[in-house]
């Protein structure tokens, strides 16, 4: 008989699944420490741990005559922090967007934000703006792309998920064409190489200023996104059902997209376009803890940090000259996605 009186609510998700996000965040911290040891100047793991744990706040005035301290805290730390934050933000954004649009092929770039931010960044390079100017213009134009997509979807009338996706495609395509135009117009000796390099994505120019921008945005938008994660379940039921459950579908969808746009714009502005992370990591996370978003988002965040940090470690230590990380994320991402595709095909998408 189906009546089971003594179902223990504590066994609901199993202790392993419940503690997995904590475990992964612990692993992430260890990988961050390990990543600080990588590089030309050797600093042993023990020294790295000691330096990190005794220097607080991170940007404190430290011992500038002490070479290991300078290497760890000034040279490597901004990059490690930036990569970790971006990985977490991208993966969480991707998980949220896949839920909102009920589509596993969706990434955080859905509203044309990446293309918009690229356009801003490239324009700033063409105008010879300083590094922080590039970051600022990329960030601003990423958000402008979202606003344009919003207006376009509203003008089209009915709204709805499909209108959003289409207007994102339109705005993204338009921005990409403008990027192409700027590339052809740019000075091929000086500007074009830096444009191409910037667009390929890299964390090489990490500074504490960039960390501050990304950390500020991620702290606010990421926290809000996490707070709203249960509501993504509701949106994923579809418009009619979510409305009947009392959800303000349009407001929630736009709110979530706005938060994701902030996160993506911040990431693109500091490191160029880093694709595939927001597409693949949510699938990996879903294989571990299931599709329920209160569990999925924290897990995806930790996995995103781990994934991007590992790839960035490879990008900067595999060869003499650094490989742009955007190239690696696609080169590594495509086979992983193919594997996931093969693995989940029999069960159907999303049923991991």
């Amino acid at each position, binding site marked *: 008989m*189906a009546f089971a009186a003594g*179902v223990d*609510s504590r066994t609901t998700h199993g202790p392993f699944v419940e503690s997995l996000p904590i475990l992964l965040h612990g692993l992430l911290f260890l990988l961050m420490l390990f990543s600080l040891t990588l590089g030309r100047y050797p600093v042993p793991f023990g020294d790295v741990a000691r330096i990190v744990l005794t220097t607080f706040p991170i940007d404190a005035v430290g011992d500038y005559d002490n070479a290991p301290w300078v290497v760890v805290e000034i040279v490597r730390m901004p990059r490690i922090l930036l990569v970790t934050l971006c990985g977490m933000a991208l993966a969480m954004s991707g998980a949220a967007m896949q839920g909102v649009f009920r589509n596993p092929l969706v990434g955080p770039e859905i509203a044309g934000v990446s293309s918009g931010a690229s356009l801003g960044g490239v324009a700033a390079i063409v105008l010879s703006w300083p590094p922080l100017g590039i970051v600022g213009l990329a960030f601003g134009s990423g958000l402008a792309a979202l606003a344009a997509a919003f207006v376009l979807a509203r003008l089209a009338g009915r709204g709805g998920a499909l209108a959003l996706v289409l207007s994102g495609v339109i705005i993204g395509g338009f921005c990409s064409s403008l990027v192409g135009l700027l590339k052809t117009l740019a000075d091929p000796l000086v500007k074009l190489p830096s444009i191409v390099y910037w667009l390929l994505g890299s964390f090489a120019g990490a500074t504490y200023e960039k960390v501050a921008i990304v950390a500020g945005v991620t702290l606010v938008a990421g926290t809000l996104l996490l*707070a709203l994660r249960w*509501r993504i379940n*509701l949106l994923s039921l579809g418009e009619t059902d979510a*409305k*009947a459950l009392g959800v303000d579908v349009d407001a929630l969808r736009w709110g979530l997209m706005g938060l994701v746009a902030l996160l993506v714009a911040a990431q693109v502005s500091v490191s160029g376009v880093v694709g595939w992370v927001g597409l693949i990591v949510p699938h990996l996370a879903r294989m571990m803890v299931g599709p329920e978003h209160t569990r999925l988002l924290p897990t995806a965040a930790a996995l995103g940090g781990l994934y991007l940090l590992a790839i960035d470690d490879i990008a900067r230590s595999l060869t003499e000259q650094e490989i742009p990380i955007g190239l690696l994320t696609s080169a590594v991402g495509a086979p992983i996605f193919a594997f996931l595709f093969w693995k989940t095909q029999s069960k159907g998408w999303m049923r991991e």
Partner: protein
Amino acid sequence: MSDAAISLRDLGFFYSPEVWALRHCEATITRGRVFALLGPNGRGKTTLLHLVIGALKPCEGSLEVKGRVAFVPQLFEVSFDYTALDMAMMGRARHIGLFAQPSRADEAAALAALDRFGMAAYAERPFHALSGGQRQLVIFARALVAEAEILVLDEPTSALDLENQALVLERIAALTRDDGLTVVMTTHHPHHALAIADDVLLMHGQGDYRVGASRALLTEDNLRALYGAPLKRLAFEHEGRSLETIAPVLTPARREAARTITRSA
């Protein structure tokens, strides 16, 4: 009328201005009763349901809904493989703050509601792995968790085998009898309406709607006018109770036609 849960006055809705899906619709749905909407496809049954749950807004006339509404969609498919418990918990949407996550109390409420429908043992099962009838029961549990007063069902028996049809109909009757809920449902089965609905709305479309007690309105003449096909209302005895049902009349010619349809489909 103080016991009206839902009142429709001259209600109209269109998707595009040339074609009204619903027009001049008048009805009063009484609290604590089962109200069934019957009619061929395209006469506005689902549109009316979507108006009642607030997914659509009336284009003319008025619609007054007194009480919290829960909706049970037809053929429930979910993009993600949530567990039955995750699904039932979503009924708490109005009770959980915008930035909050479900608490242990919400989870306990969802489990208790699943238990009400004999689904507690399936709480951790993927929703997709459940049978159509079991999914309906999970969604009923979700409505209970929402503390809804009005339950709106879109063809609750359409995807179910005979055993599950009987089970679900029995549960719907129990929700009004034991929990005092008001149920509004669409159905393609007049005998289901006769079995559990107190009142029915016959939707001929375009301003022609008939509302009344199911026993009085579900006559052979009315049903023939509604569906354009002959149906028989039959009385019979079962375990000492006198019951009634409605059956379609399939003459040999008709049976031949039915076979042709099956073959071509």
